[in-house]
Each structure stands twice: as structure tokens, then as C-alpha cells.
């Protein structure tokens, strides 16, 4: 284990994330993990890591980091205008950094979450088989909390074939700017009134300020649902719940593991990276698709990622 990065400014909410702890859901613990798995995986592959290595997930405002020992990194996801020693650097590309280099971010051009991977993988506290930070339980990652000034981030042993200058072609990125989320109709779509169902697919919704890694509250038309209280059932990230108030909630990585509100739709896996890059105030629409079309898009994304694997 090597100290690679020192936190000079932590950014708004920067956490250590890997692919989460899906098996802990049976105990009511959110699965957690990187919100944008495409960007997280791409960053890891670019530096020669396995997809399950931990990365830094930076939210809306990136951190300022000082390099403690030479390392290979990649920055992916939302464009927060990354800079090394004040000069712009390419995203979606592996970059070699020298001791004393300063990695900072100039502002937010697009997206909501940037990922920083380091060759060898970032090392954090492991809790229930994952290094992902769980704030509620104060476990995992950097002692269960977001980064703070003075934290020192360590990496594991770098994998041998890592090289600088490897990149993912821009045309292979998910259509991040296209704020249409593709969904499959959910188990309880029949509880929406015909008007509400039409409104769900034809209206724009705005991501509310009180949206976070648990889920996004979506402001828009009131969606009328009917039917008796339901018995609780297990939930998944991407499920769109409509609680009593009629305003949908899109469940994200730290979602509650069970609930009883109608699930009227669920995002396809290829749309999850796009959802992960939505910021409060962004407008979003839902479009229904088929499972076959969803699997094709999923395969395409996976093929792009595989092209980065060493």
C-alpha cells in the first residue's frame, strides 16, 4: 500500500466507491457503490485495474489533490474541468502524475459525478465485502465519511501493464447530454391513472435539490395512483417509485432496500450512467423501451468498456 494523494480541498462530497455490497441488501444495508458504473469501470480499465477496484466519486465540485508518489490516474464521468498544475488535462485518458503534482478542478461543465481511478486501486476500509462508503452506517471507504482536508489516499500495488495515454473515444461514451431515461414498465404501472401514465411519459421532470445517492426526487406533474397499501418488497437501483404525494422518486445506489410504494417503471441498465450524471435542476424525461432493446444497449456499453481492458 502506497500513499498516493493528499487531500488539500475535499470538494463538495467526495467518497471512495467500488461496485458495492449487493449481498448486504438482505440485512437492509443499501448496496451502495459507484453511481455511474460506466465511468467508474472505464477509469479503472484505463489504468489497468479490475472493474471492482475502488475509485473516488466526486460530486458537483471536485477536490484539490496533491500527488504524494508517482502514479497513473484516469478521470472520467462528469466534466469538472480537470487540471494538473493548473493546466487542462484530458478526461477518459490515463495520465501519469509525478510527486508534487496538483490535481484540481476548474468548475462544472457537465454531469454530476466525476471519477478518479488510480493504478493499483484506491484502498479504503472494507466493510461487508466492499470499500464503498456508507455514510448512514459510517463504515467503508475513508472511515465511512466523505473526504476531508488532510486525508491521505492510498493505492494498492499497481498492475504491471499500466501505460499513460490510453483513451476512450468520445463517440463511445453513453449519451450523457441526452436527458432521456429509458425504462421498462414496472410491476405496479397499473396503479397509475391513464392520465398519470400519459403524464409520466410525456412530461419533463426536474431533479429536486434534495436528491442524493439514495435517490432523486422528481418535480413535475402530480401522478395519481390508486389501490390499497402494498406489502413491502425488495427494491433495486433504477426503480421509479410513486409515493402518496404523487411525485416520483428514482432510486439510486444507496437506495432503501425495501418499500411498499408502487414501482411504475425501472430504468434499463444502459440508462443508469446517464441518471448518475443528473444534477439538481436538470430536466429529465422517461421513454419506454423493450427488454430486447435494453439488452442491446447494455451489450454495446459493455463492448466499449471491454475495448479498454488491458
Amino acid at each position, binding site marked *: 500500500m502506497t500513499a498516493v494523494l493528499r487531500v488539500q480541498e475535499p470538494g463538495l462530497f467526495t467518497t471512495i466507491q467500488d461496485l458495492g455490497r449487493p449481498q448486504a441488501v438482505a440485512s437492509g444495508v443499501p448496496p451502495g457503490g459507484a453511481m455511474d458504473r460506466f465511468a467508474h469501470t472505464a477509469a479503472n480499465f484505463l489504468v489497468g485495474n479490475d472493474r471492482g477496484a475502488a475509485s473516488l466519486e466526486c460530486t458537483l465540485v471536485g477536490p484539490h489533490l496533491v500527488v504524494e508518489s508517482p502514479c497513473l490516474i484516469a478521470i472520467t464521468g462528469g466534466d469538472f474541468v480537470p487540471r494538473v498544475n493548473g493546466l487542462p488535462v484530458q478526461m477518459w485518458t490515463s495520465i501519469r502524475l509525478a510527486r508534487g503534482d496538483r490535481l484540481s478542478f476548474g468548475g462544472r461543465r457537465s454531469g454530476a459525478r466525476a471519477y478518479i481511478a488510480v493504478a493499483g486501486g484506491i484502498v479504503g476500509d472494507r466493510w461487508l465485502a466492499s470499500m464503498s462508503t456508507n455514510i448512514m452506517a459510517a463504515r467503508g471507504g475513508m472511515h465511512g465519511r466523505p473526504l476531508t482536508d488532510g486525508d491521505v489516499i492510498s493505492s494498492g500495488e499497481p498492475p504491471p501493464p499500466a501505460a499513460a495515454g490510453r483513451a476512450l473515444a468520445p463517440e463511445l461514451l453513453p449519451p450523457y447530454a441526452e436527458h432521456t431515461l429509458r425504462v421498462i414498465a414496472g*410491476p405496479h404501472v397499473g396503479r397509475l391513472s391513464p392520465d398519470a401514465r400519459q403524464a409520466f411519459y410525456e412530461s419533463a421532470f426536474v431533479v429536486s435539490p434534495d436528491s442524493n445517492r439514495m435517490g432523486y426526487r422528481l418535480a413535475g406533474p402530480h401522478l395519481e395512483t390508486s389501490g390499497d397499501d402494498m*406489502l*413491502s*418488497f*425488495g*427494491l433495486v437501483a*433504477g426503480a421509479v417509485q410513486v409515493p402518496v404525494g404523487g411525485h416520483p422518486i428514482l432510486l439510486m445506489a444507496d437506495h432503501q432496500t*425495501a418499500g411498499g410504494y408502487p414501482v411504475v417503471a425501472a430504468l*434499463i441498465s444502459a440508462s443508469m450512467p446517464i441518471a448518475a450524471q443528473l444534477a439538481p435542476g436538470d430536466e429529465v424525461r422517461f421513454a419506454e423501451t423493450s*427488454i430486447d432493446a435494453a439488452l442491446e444497449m447494455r451489450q454495446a456499453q459493455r463492448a466499449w468498456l471491454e475495448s479498454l481492458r488491458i
Partner: protein
Amino acid sequence: MPPRRSTVRVHIHPLGDTALIAELGTRLDSALNTRAIALAAALKKRRDVHQAVVGAVSVTVSFDPDLISHDALGAAIRRLATKRPPIEEPGRLHRIPVVYDGPDLDQVASSLGVTPRQVIELHGRPIYRAFLIGFVPGWAYLGPVPDELVLPRRPVPRTLVPAGSVAIAGRQTGIYPLATPGGWHLIGRTSVRLFLPDSDPPSLFRAGDRVKFFAIQE
């Protein structure tokens, strides 16, 4: 007696392209919950299944669509769900001390047309079943509560319910493991810790466990 084969009708719905929910029924029913627990356990052994989470009378399954299609997994679930479940081992019994002084106790009593003392007596009478673990770490949906205690959820949820609160809603009861928002009626509190972050699994209760409440004075 477990229900006969023909009585279990499984409804399978997709949850996106990598998950589905298998609903075994719509009513709170111990026999169906037993089947859901057995189904989830069988599904977790499959290589193509990432996770199977027990609901009250359902199982939510995350799977690898590269290894199996929705339809093929659905067919496998139907076969598994109609099998007679193994004779159930009684779940572990937890005895939970409660100080019945919740802020909603009087309101609950008057809504139900009984006295607070009767609410306490009714709530402590059954041995409840933990139907599922979820919502927040360590929370268990317990039930069914006696018919005399059935009340809909509060119309407006509280933004913060203290950890340890003992609550009822519908035919269910539960204990808030952490301070969270909540829409259930708070009738008491306990000092028993339900979320055990440094244990694995980190939840005191598991689906299928049994829980008995008893009143204590502070």
C-alpha cells in the same frame, strides 16, 4: 399446513433489464412468506443470480442477463415456487423489552376505540414473524398484528423518528433501528440494537425469525 401446489400463483414482472420481482401473493401470509424465503435461498445458489431479496410475499431477484433471459429465469422461478417448501424450522425467538410511552399511543388507542393499556396488551400478545428485513439497515417488518390494532399509516410521515421507536401500521409492527423518516404510529421504544454494523450479517433479525414484545417500566 403448507398450501397445496395449485394455490401458489406466481406473478413475475421485470424491474428493468437485470432484475425482476416474483410475487407469490398479495396478503400477509406466513406460509407464503416461508415459500418466499425458500425461493430466495434456492435462487441465491444459482450462478446467474446476483441477489434474491425476500419481500413479505415476494422475491426481488437481480440477475446476469448474459447468463439467463428474463423468460428462462421466470420459468425456473415458477418451477421452484410451486415445489412444496421444506418443513419450516421455527425461526430464532427474540424477546424485546418495550417501554410503551410512544407519542402516538393515546391517538392510536382513541382511533381504535380502546384504552392505551389495551393497545399495550394487544401488541404484546402474539409471537410475531419477521417477514422481511429491509427499508433501512436492521429494520424488520413484523406481523401480523391482532385485527384490533390495524390502522393505516399516518397521513403525513414524520421527518425524523428516533432510533429504537416501536411502531405499528397496517397489519405490521416494527422497530426503527436508526433515526430515519417514518410514517408509522409510535407506541413505545426499546434499547435493543437491531443494526449491528460490526457483525456479519449486520442485522439482529433475519427473515423467518420470531419476535415477542414485553412491557417494562423505565
